[in-house]
């Protein structure tokens, strides 16, 4: 009996250790980037063009490029993703087709990001002749974040109690009126969470934009959706592997801005979800 408790202590200690092995490095990574990146941040770094082959100056065009890409991706993915979620939650029956759709969503989420890049290159850049442009990159990122938006929106819609729908229908509202005026308003926080998580994902990905939009060095702002653009994650890749002798401060500063942007969006999503859970009356 004593032996089995000794075993338990050893086992629990090992489990605790493996947890530390994951969580401690995460904390360290974030700390190091904050500690070394924060001193590099000033107004000039954020608002200036890169200079001297990206060895000096700021990262303004990369920030703007990422904002354009993310906004474009969400404009494409949100309507399709939301309607798709409404279909799954309100209209689909439990049949083979629904099963296939769910499987397709899982697969879409699992496709390697670089394969999205290839697909965007073949379809948008070459086949539709959009060229290497913000449009091609946004559409590629949009398809990539579709599964995030569909899954979270569907969960939000399905968490609205069935009785809400029944009451609305019994008062003579049509199915669409019920969805539009009863189900959707109650699901908005969840949908918002999914949208913001999708934004964060799109802002951080590099591989899908490599061949569809990203410009190596373009010290001006894009003028139309058919222009190339710089983007934060690609810029970080370029200055840390492709350009020699870049000041460490600029690298850490860029990593800091990218990480802050992505973590901020995740934080907002978590807060919305948390508040929503607390406020839920049913």
């Amino acid at each position, binding site marked *: 009996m004593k032996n089995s408790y000794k075993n338990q202590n050893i086992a629990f200690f090992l489990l605790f250790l493996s947890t530390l092995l994951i969580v401690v490095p*995460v904390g360290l990574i974030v700390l*190091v980037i904050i500690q070394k990146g924060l001193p590099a941040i000033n107004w000039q770094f954020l608002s200036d063009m890169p200079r001297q082959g990206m060895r000096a100056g700021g990262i303004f065009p990369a920030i703007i490029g990422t904002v354009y890409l993310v906004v474009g991706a969400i404009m494409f993915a949100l309507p399709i993703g939301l309607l798709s979620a409404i279909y799954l939650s309100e209209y689909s029956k439990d049949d083979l087709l629904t099963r296939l759709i769910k499987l397709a*969503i899982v697969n*879409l989420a*699992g496709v390697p990001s670089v394969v999205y890049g290839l697909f965007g290159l073949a379809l948008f850049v070459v086949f539709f002749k959009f060229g290497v442009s913000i449009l091609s990159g946004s559409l590629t990122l949009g398809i990539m974040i579709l599964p995030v938006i569909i899954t979270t929106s569907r969960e939000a819609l399905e968490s609205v109690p069935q009785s809400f729908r029944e009451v609305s229908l019994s008062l003579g509202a049509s199915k669409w009126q019920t969805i539009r005026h009863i189900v959707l308003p109650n699901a908005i926080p969840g949908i918002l969470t999914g949208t913001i998580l999708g934004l964060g994902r799109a802002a951080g990905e590099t591989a899908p934009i490599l061949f569809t939009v990203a410009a190596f060095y373009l010290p001006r702002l894009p003028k139309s959706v058919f222009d190339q653009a710089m983007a934060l*994650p690609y810029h970080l890749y370029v200055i840390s592997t492709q350009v020699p002798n870049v000041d460490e401060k600029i690298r850490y500063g860029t990593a800091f801005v990218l990480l802050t942007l992505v973590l901020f969006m995740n934080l907002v999503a978590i807060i919305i979800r948390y508040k929503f859970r607390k406020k839920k009356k049913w």
Partner: protein
Amino acid sequence: MRKIKEFVIVKLIQVCGLASIFFVALIFLFLLKEGLSVFKTVSPFDFSFGKNWYPISEPAQLGILPLISGSLLVTLGAAVISIPIGVGCAVYIAEIAPLKIKEILKAGIELLAAIPSVVLGFIGMITLVPLVKNIFHLPTGLTALSGSIMLAFMAMPTIVSIAEDALYSVPKTYKEGALALGATHWQAIWRVMLPAASSGILAAVMLGIGRVIGETMAVMMITGNAAVMPNSILVPVRTLTATIAAEMGEAVVGSEHYFALFAIGIILFIISFAINVTADLFLQKRQQ
């Protein structure tokens, strides 16, 4: 009028419902369209088992065995590291950690999942790569081992969160039964909970490995990118994903090289498809 409007909306919803299937098919179709052309000049056998990858030499040699070996080696290393640690962490979070610590740990794991892979690659270059170099006295720290460690880390969020779900969904009565029979908490976990959650944990491991195979940026930044057959885990390698990312920028649209990179894309797509479908079957089995 209202009826027409609703009819249009319902049709629109139904069309968008099929969007995911449409896009998966579209991705596969376009990969095939561009990738299959490579087999006009190279036989599928030479492509898969050729030991030389010199895409720009004349004539180009397009054998992807070194790239497949690179991916396998890095993935195997990452699996060895991430499976025990990831499942261990999942058990700790699901069964042992007090409620407050549980929330902190889960937030930490979510944080890890949110960090962009290029940032992890950057940190890996600066911290992990010199460390590996110094410990093993190597000429360069950009090795398969560095890649494995980094990728293991990136697979953790997937493994931990899905395995934890699997442990939660084991009926409470199983554990209570074991405890009532005099088992210690650990015996209940080891003999009852883990076997009962095994199909979900298997799915977690598979999806984690899927993540590793598909990961691109971090692996490209820290494995050294040498497209040669690896003979140990302490040499630079190049993975399938990194090859596409590194070379597509220079490949001329419509060239043999371009087609070959798409053919690699087909392989990656099929691997991820197989992994996701199988993992989904395991998760379905769990629900029944």
